[in-house]
């Protein structure tokens, strides 16, 4: 059984509706049995894939994502962002982007950000006169910031698969996230003029502004503390996640007094479900990726790509095309697990920095969350906004432009990703 037959079997089973984790695992198991490799490898690889300290950060960041609404942090972040840019034309669209950036500094997952902020933002934008599909599209595009700005669940998973420093990769996401924010704001500015986006007419008295700012401050300070902690070496990625959980609990229980036992339990239940869903895929993908490696698929992929070109820019552009297509059809974590071992060796051989490649891979796959037919973010926002998935799939395309422009910039200018980690770690 060749490596490409393993991939073929996986695709066939997936398309027949078999759970992704089972499709990956069973394809690998079939190969192992046919190749006469000891079956003990399966349990060993699957168990060890989860026996990883860096991956604990994923569990804890999912927990943080579940706690954001329960602790009242989301609402304060939104009000704080509104205070800054709420009154310009298209103010709530800017608020949407900025609130997502701040949220990105806490949660690390696009779906968590849509779930936490989406309903508040879309409701407020609709009430102010935005079309609901425009509000939903801006929300879902801005949520792409979540996994790019640290902390980031996909980057932690990429780092563990590609065996690069998790801290470096997380820090590498900071400047690209700011580039995406800028591109999204330029689009909002353009659309605000072209489509006459509304502006807030209510003028808040200074006393109210001051009160809102003071209340929002502990929530707004969260990403500053976390990114600061990362940059100054107070925390590793997993410790950062642990600290964020307790800081969120502290804000919810002591400062905002909105956290109840019931909400905490609901958040914890959501967390264990989301964690087990992702990690079962990670565990099965480990044996799948191992089978591909034994069959020398990464080496064949290297040969194929390097035969096409040895120029890092050409290869990165090729990777962009491949991953954008993969992202349209494959769940992002599974795609990271499967594609990373295939892409890292050839790109590394061509001289691409693995940290830069990590940012490019994650950004591509996060854009994939917005593209049909398997666009998880689109599904999520269509549920929240009551705009049908097919309608979302039709209207989302213009909102992909700033993300694709950002991707191009991040791809062509590696120092956007590597400058800050190199500076911090004195390469």
């Amino acid at each position, binding site marked *: 059984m060749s490596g490409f037959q393993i991939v073929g079997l996986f695709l066939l*089973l*997936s*398309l*027949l*509706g*078999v*759970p*992704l*984790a*089972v499709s990956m*695992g*069973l394809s690998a*198991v079939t190969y192992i*049995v046919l190749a006469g490799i*000891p*079956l*003990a*490898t*399966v*349990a*060993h690889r*699957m*168990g060890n894939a*989860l*026996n*990883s*300290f860096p*991956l*604990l950060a994923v*569990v*804890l960041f999912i*927990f943080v994502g579940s706690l954001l609404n329960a602790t009242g942090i989301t609402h304060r972040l939104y009000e704080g962002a509104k205070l800054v840019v709420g009154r310009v034309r298209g103010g709530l669209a800017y608020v949407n982007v900025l609130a997502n950036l701040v949220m990105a500094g806490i949660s690390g997952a696009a779906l968590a950000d849509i779930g936490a902020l989406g309903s508040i933002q879309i409701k407020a934008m609709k009430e102010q006169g935005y079309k609901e599909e425009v509000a939903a599209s801006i929300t879902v595009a801005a949520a792409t910031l979540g996994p790019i700005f640290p902390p980031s669940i996909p980057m932690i998973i990429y780092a563990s698969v590609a065996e690069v420093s998790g801290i470096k990769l997380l820090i590498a996401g900071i400047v690209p996230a700011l580039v995406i924010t800028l591109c999204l704001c330029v689009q909002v500015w353009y659309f605000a003029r072209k489509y006459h986006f509304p502006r807030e007419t209510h003028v808040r008295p200074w006393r109210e502004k001051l009160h809102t700012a003071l209340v929002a401050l502990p929530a707004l300070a969260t990403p500053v503390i976390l990114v600061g902690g990362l940059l100054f070496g*107070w*925390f590793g990625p*997993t*410790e950062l*996640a*642990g*600290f964020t*959980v*307790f800081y969120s609990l502290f804000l919810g229980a002591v400062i905002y007094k909105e956290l109840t036992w019931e909400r905490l*339990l609901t958040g*914890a*239940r959501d*967390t*264990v*479900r989301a*964690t*087990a*869903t992702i*990690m*079962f*895929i990670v*565990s099965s993908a480990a044996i799948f990726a191992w089978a591909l490696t034994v069959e020398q698929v990464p080496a064949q992929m290297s040969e194929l790509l390097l035969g096409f070109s040895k120029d890092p820019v050409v290869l990165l552009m090729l990777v962009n095309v491949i991953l954008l297509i993969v992202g349209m*059809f*494959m*769940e992002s974590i*599974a795609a990271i697990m499967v594609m990373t071992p295939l892409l890292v060796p050839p790109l590394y051989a061509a001289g691409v920095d693995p940290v830069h490649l990590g940012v490019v891979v994650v950004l591509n796959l996060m854009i994939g969350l917005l593209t049909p*037919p*398997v666009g998880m973010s689109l599904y999520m926002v269509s549920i929240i906004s009551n705009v049908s998935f097919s309608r979302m799939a039709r209207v989302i395309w213009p909102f992909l432009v700033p993300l694709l422009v950002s991707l191009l910039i991040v791809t062509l200018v590696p120092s956007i990703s590597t400058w800050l980690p190199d500076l911090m770690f004195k390469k």
Partner: protein
Amino acid sequence: MAQPTARVSLIGRTAQVCEYVSLACLAVIATLIFVQILLRNFASLAYAGIEELARFAHINLVFLLVPLLFREGLHVKIDLLTHRAGPKLKRVLDAFAALLTTVYCLFFLVSEYQFMAKNGSVPSPGLGIPNIVFFAGAYLGMALLFLTAAETFLQKARGQAGGGGR
């Protein structure tokens, strides 16, 4: 017919109990990591056992919840083609998915047995927990997933409503 119903509910209840264990594991992970931050930053202490215990809890959290996820239809699936299928074909595909999940679990359990037969007593470096205990969550969870998937397969084959996937 009373006997199968009792068996079904037993598998379901066991999966529910596993959820409580997973919740406890989450609390353990969060607490241990926070303790580690405090120890490292305020007492300049590092204890490998803390990290190991957190990883042990992680493995249990994931594998013990997998059966419940299957029961609730929360495993990620690509429904690109299947959502267009009619009810009869959908039932056949659901049964097929459950059957393959059962087969996968069976292979895993045989694999785990072979692995533990040789390495079950190997202790972990920090706390000295033998592999057979350290990875207990994995084989218990997959054994329960085997039962849950088999039960779902039988339900689908008989045309009854049941779990499956999303």
